[in-house]
């Protein structure tokens, strides 16, 4: 079957244009409606979120009010932790002399007596020790023992002199040793705790 359009060409073109316009209008209306719907959805989303926000904010305010009742307890906890943290930081720099001196005592040979001993954590040499003993051998034994200790380093034999006590006939060897602190405590070290423990193992 053959369709023959007998409309005049002008009318035909007008109809086509009208059809095209109609479809364009419908597309535009659909687009506008879609955007309008999007606007409505956004509005409802906004009201939902605002309602949730109001609830959450009031919950926070309520919780804060409850926490305010225990503010003293919080301040106490904060003060305790602050002091603990400050202590830890100070202890990192602090020398635990009881441990250091105990290790020094453990290193002293039987025939060594101290006369003067100075320890200064901020000035090298950290230790100056003057004492007396029977022979140089004892001083060197003492020096070796200190060098093997985890607490001391740079042990230097400074001087020795033979003296005779007025009341005694036996001669005494006066000596001076200078050395530095290597580790400030069993837990805190100057040159590294691992190194300290390694050295401790070696001694054992």
């Amino acid at each position, binding site marked *: 079957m053959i369709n023959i359009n007998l409309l005049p060409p002008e009318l035909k073109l007008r109809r086509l*244009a009208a059809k*095209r*316009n109609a479809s*364009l209008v419908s597309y*535009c209306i659909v687009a*506008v409606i879609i*955007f*309008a719907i999007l*606007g409505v959805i*956004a509005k409802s*989303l*906004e009201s939902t*979120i*605002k309602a949730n*926000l109001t609830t*959450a904010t009031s*919950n*926070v305010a309520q*919780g*804060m009010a*409850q*926490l305010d009742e*225990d503010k003293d*307890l*919080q301040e106490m906890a*904060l*003060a*305790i*932790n*602050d*002091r*603990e943290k*400050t*202590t830890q*930081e*100070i202890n*990192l*720099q602090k*020398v635990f*002399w*009881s441990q250091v001196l*105990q290790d020094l005592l453990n290193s002293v040979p039987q025939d060594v*007596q101290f*006369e*003067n*001993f*100075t*320890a200064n*954590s*901020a*000035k*090298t040499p*950290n230790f100056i020790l003057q004492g*007396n003993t029977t022979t140089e051998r004892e001083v060197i034994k003492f020096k070796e023992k200190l060098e093997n200790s985890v607490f001391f*380093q740079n042990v230097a034999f400074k001087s020795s002199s033979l003296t005779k*006590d007025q*009341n005694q006939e*036996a001669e005494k060897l006066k000596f001076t040793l200078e050395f530095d*602190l290597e580790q400030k405590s069993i837990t805190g070290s*100057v040159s590294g705790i691992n190194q300290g423990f390694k050295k401790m193992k070696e001694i054992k």
Partner: protein
Amino acid sequence: MTKRKPFLIFIISIILILIIIVFVIWPVVASVWKSWQELKQAQSEQKTVEEKKQIIAGLKTNPRIPEISQIALKYIPKDSESGQLVIELTAIAGSNSLKVEEMSMEKSQEASAKEEETTTASPQTSVNPTATSPPAAAQTKEVDFSMKLSGEFINFMKFLQEIETSSRLISINTIALQSKAPSGTEVAAFDAQIEGAAFSKKEVSLTDTLENIKISNETIEKFLNLKTFGQPINLPTESGFGRSNPFEGY
């Protein structure tokens, strides 16, 4: 006119869409975004508050928190408390049969300022206890003291141990020991001169975070195990004040 008609329809639609976007969608989206951010923040705050409540509830189960707080604030007090320091040091020495021959206190100074001085004064030192400035200890003040003691060495060792566990944080910087006995004798008497510092801190420098209000058992144990030596001065209960002639012997 018919040629322009589709163009006009298109333009009107675009204008309508733009009006909807500019006056409805854009402000709503902006408001939703802002509210969403606020909601997120509020929810996170709510979570923090809940966690904080739990921590506080945990703290409430320990009735010794006020006592521990007092101990901590005595360990590093807000003010220099040099009087209590004298009492503490003297009591530690006395409890170990050491005689305090001399004692002096110096004006408290900022720990950080002192650190700088020490660093510049002895740049070659191998052991510099104050080479780095720790943040929490930055607001700490030092109360310097020096003491001259006499007694026996074994008691001096106990004195050092007790200073390390005393109820006041004390750091000894220098020790000078001199034997009193003639060389070769068995008498162990000696003189000791020590210099050190106690610490004070005016403000709490930790921020109010969840981590900072949790108290570990280790911290509790540590503060509870500190030993107090000197009895603190309590003026309202101390008697024996008022003399008609203070130049008379007492």
